[in-house]
C-alpha cells in the first residue's frame, strides 16, 4: 500500500491534462511500475543444450537442465540458462552471453511449487529483471520464471513460463475524468517493444485493482483452470494501437524516445484527432467496459450509455465486461459449436481455454447514416440445455445475455458452481451442480 501511495503522489504531480489545454497535443509522463501480481503470461520456448556452457557454476548433484530461453526469433534476445533443480538454483546469462559465472545478479533461488505427480518438478524463480536491447531500448522488465520438467514422461522437454510484473503508467485527464494510461511491453516476438506491446486504459479509480493483460491461451496453463478462461478475455488492456477513442475523443498516441532505465520517463503524447462519428446503440445493461477493435480505432467505453458516438468503422472483435455490485461477468465469445470450453493441450497436458474470434456476422459496422445496434450486456439469464448422448442426458449450463451471446460470471476462485433442479409434475426428482469446463 505504501508503494502505491507513493506512486500515486508522483503520478498526480505529473499527470497530463489532455484536452483542457489550448494545444491539441499533450504529453503524459509514464513511469515504471512494478506489481505484486503477474498480469501477462507466456510460454518461453527452450533451445535445449547438452554440452556445458564455456563458463558454468560448479556442478551439483541432481538433475541439471541447460539451454537458451528464446524470446522471439532474434537470437540476440536469447538468454542462456542453467537450471539445477536439485539445488533449486537458476543461473541466467542476463547479458545474453554464455558466461554464467560473471554476474552474481544472475543467480536465483527457487520456490518449489506443488505438483500432483512426484515426477513433475515445478520451481518458481521470482523478481527477475530481463532486458532485450536487440528489440527495445533495453529497459528491464520484471518477471517471474516458472520452470517445469516431467522427469518420467518428457525428461528432455523442460517448460518455462514467463509472467510479467512490470509496466509503465501515468494519469491522463479527459473532460474532467481521470484515466490510467499504461504501456505493457511485448513479451513474445519483440520482447521489450512498446509498439508491439499492449495499452492499458481504464478509469483512474481502478488504478490499484489488479488487471490482466491479454495472454495467448498457451501461456496461461500456470494459472488455475477457472482463471484461464477469464484472463484471455481480459479487457483492461489491448494490443497497442496508435489510434484510440475514449471519453468521446479520438486520439493519436506516440512517443519520441523509449526509456533506457527504470528511472527514465516515457513521454506519451496524445494528439486529438478529428474523425467522423456514427451512432452506436447498445441494447444491454450493466456494461462496465466495452472495448471495440476497429480497422482504424480501438474504442474504449466505460459504463456506456444506451446510445454513444464512436468513429465510423467496422468493429470486430469486441470485449464486454459487465458489473453490478461486486459481481462481474464477461462475454465469452469464441465458444465453439461443440459447446466445449476447452481443448486438451498435448505438450503440457493442461486444459487450455479456446479463444477464437467471433463469427464475421458479429462484426459491427458503424457509419454516419444510420445507428448501429450492438446487442450485448445484461440482464443475464441462467439457462440449461439438455442433449441426449446414448443412455445419458447431458445438461449444459449457459448464462445468456440480454442480447444473446454467452457470458461467464467472474467471482475469483471462490465461485459457487451453478446448480440444476429436475422436477416431474412439480415434484423434485433430482438436483445437482454443474462442473466447470
Amino acid at each position, binding site marked *: 500500500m505504501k508503494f502505491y501511495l507513493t506512486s500515486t503522489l508522483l503520478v498526480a504531480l505529473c499527470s497530463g491534462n489532455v484536452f483542457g489545454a489550448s494545444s491539441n497535443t499533450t504529453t503524459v509522463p509514464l513511469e515504471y511500475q512494478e506489481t505484486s501480481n503477474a498480469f501477462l503470461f507466456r510460454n518461453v520456448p527452450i533451445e535445449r543444450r547438452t554440452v556445458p556452457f564455456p563458463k558454468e557454476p560448479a556442478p551439483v548433484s541432481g538433475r541439471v537442465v541447460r539451454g537458451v530461453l528464446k524470446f522471439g526469433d532474434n537470437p540476440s534476445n536469447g538468454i542462456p540458462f542453467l537450471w539445477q533443480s536439485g539445488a533449486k538454483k537458476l543461473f541466467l546469462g542476463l547479458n545474453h552471453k554464455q558466461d554464467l559465472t560473471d554476474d552474481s545478479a544472475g543467480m536465483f533461488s527457487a520456490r518449489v511449487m506443488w505438483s500432483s505427480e512426484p*515426477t513433475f518438478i515445478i520451481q518458481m524463480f521470482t523478481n527477475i529483471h530481463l532486458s532485450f536491447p536487440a528489440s527495445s531500448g533495453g529497459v528491464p522488465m520484471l518477471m517471474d520464471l516458472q520452470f517445469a520438467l*516431467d*522427469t*518420467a*514422461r*518428457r*525428461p*528432455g*522437454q523442460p517448460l518455462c513460463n514467463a509472467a510479467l510484473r512490470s509496466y509503465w503508467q501515468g494519469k491522463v485527464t479527459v473532460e474532467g475524468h481521470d484515466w490510467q494510461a499504461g504501456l505493457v511491453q511485448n513479451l513474445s516476438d519483440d520482447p521489450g517493444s512498446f509498439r508491439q506491446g499492449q495499452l492499458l486504459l481504464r478509469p483512474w479509480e481502478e488504478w490499484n485493482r489488479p488487471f490482466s493483460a491479454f495472454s495467448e491461451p498457451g501461456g496461461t496453463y500456470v494459472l488455475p483452470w477457472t482463471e484461464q478462461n477469464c484472463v484471455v478475455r481480459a479487457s483492461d488492456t489491448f494490443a497497442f494501437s496508435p489510434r484510440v477513442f475514449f471519453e468521446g475523443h479520438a486520439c493519436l498516441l506516440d512517443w519520441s524516445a523509449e526509456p533506457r532505465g527504470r528511472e527514465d520517463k516515457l513521454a506519451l503524447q496524445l494528439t486529438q484527432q478529428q474523425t467522423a462519428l456514427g451512432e452506436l446503440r447498445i441494447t444491454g445493461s*450493466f456494461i462496465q467496459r466495452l472495448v471495440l477493435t476497429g480497422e482504424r480505432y480501438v474504442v474504449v467505453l466505460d459504463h456506456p450509455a444506451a446510445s454513444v458516438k464512436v468513429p465510423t468503422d467496422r468493429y470486430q472483435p469486441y470485449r464486454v465486461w*459487465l458489473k*453490478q*455490485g*461486486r*459481481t462481474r*461477468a464477461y462475454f465469452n465469445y469464441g465458444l465453439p459449436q461443440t459447446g466445449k470450453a476447452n481443448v486438451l493441450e498435448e505438450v503440457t497436458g493442461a486444459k487450455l481455454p479456446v479463444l477464437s474470434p467471433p463469427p464475421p456476422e458479429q462484426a459491427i459496422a458503424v457509419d454516419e447514416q444510420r445507428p448501429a445496434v450492438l446487442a450485448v450486456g*445484461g*440482464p*443475464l*439469464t*441462467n*439457462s*440449461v*440445455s*439438455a442433449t*441426449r*448422448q*446414448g*443412455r445419458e*442426458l447431458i*445438461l449444459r*449450463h449457459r*448464462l445468456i445475455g440480454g442480447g444473446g451471446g454467452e457470458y461467464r*460470471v467472474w*467471482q475469483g476462485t471462490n465461485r*459457487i*458452481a*451453478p*446448480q*440444476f*433442479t*429436475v*422436477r416431474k409434475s412439480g415434484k423434485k426428482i433430482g438436483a445437482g451442480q*454443474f462442473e466447470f469446463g
Partner: protein
Amino acid sequence: MVASSDLGGLGSREGPRVTYNWVLPSIAPMLLPWLAILGLLALKPNRCAGAWWIWLPLGCVMAFTLAPPDILPSGADFFLDVIAALAAGLAAVWLLANYLRRHHRFVTFLCLLSALAGFSLLGFVSRLDWSFTDFNFTDETLPAVIVLAVGVLASSAALILGGLICRGRYRPLRLYGWLLLLLAGSWLVVTAPIFVLQSIGSNGGIDWGEFFVPVLVVAVCHFATLLPFLILSSASPFYRERLKALLHAKPEAPPVMAPVPEASLKT
C-alpha cells in the same frame, strides 16, 4: 429443469423452466443377446435341464454391470459395457463348445475366436442407444470396441493355451491359475507395443509402473468375468464336458474292465 446460480444483481437467480421429454430407449435391442442365448439353448445338444444353468453366471455378470459398486471411477461406464458383452459371448461359447471343438487346436482357436467375437459384438451393440432419432457414437464407443476386441482375443488365446498346458488332466484350480496368468500375459503382450510406441512418439522415458498396474487390473477384471463360467463348469457335469471339449482335455480313462479272477468265481 431449472438452472440456478447467484448472479449478484446481473440477473435472476433462477432461470426459466426448460422441459425435456425423456423417452426410454427401446428395450428390443437389449433383448437381442438374451434371445440369442435362448436360441442356442434350443440346439439339440443343449436340450437338457443342465444347459439352463448358463443363465446363472450370465445373470451374475449382468447384474454387476447394471448395479456396479461405487468404488468404480467415473468414466468407467464403457468398461461395464465391455464386461457385459464379453459375458454374453462367453455364455454363447459355453453353449456352442461341441460345435467349436475341432481336431486341431489352432482351428478350435479360430472357431472359438469367431464365436466369441460375434456374440460379444452382438452383446455390445445391444447396449448402445438405438433410438434412430438421436443415435450417435459417443466418445467412448471406439475405445470400448478396441478393449472388447483385445478382450476377445485374450480370452480365446488364454483358453486354448490353458488347454494346452493342462492337457494331461483336467484340474480346475490349476486351470484357473493358468488362465489368470495367461490373461495377464495376453493383455501385456497386446498392449505393450502400443505403450512403447506412444512413449517413443512423445520423446519421453517409459514409466513401466503406469503400464503394468492398469493392464494387470484390467486382466484381473477380465478373469473375474470368466470366473463364474469356470465355476459353472466345475459344478455342472454338463458344462464340465463342454469346457474339456474346448480345452482339448483328454477324456478321463474309462474304468478298467478286467476279467474277474476265476478263483473268486469258484468260491
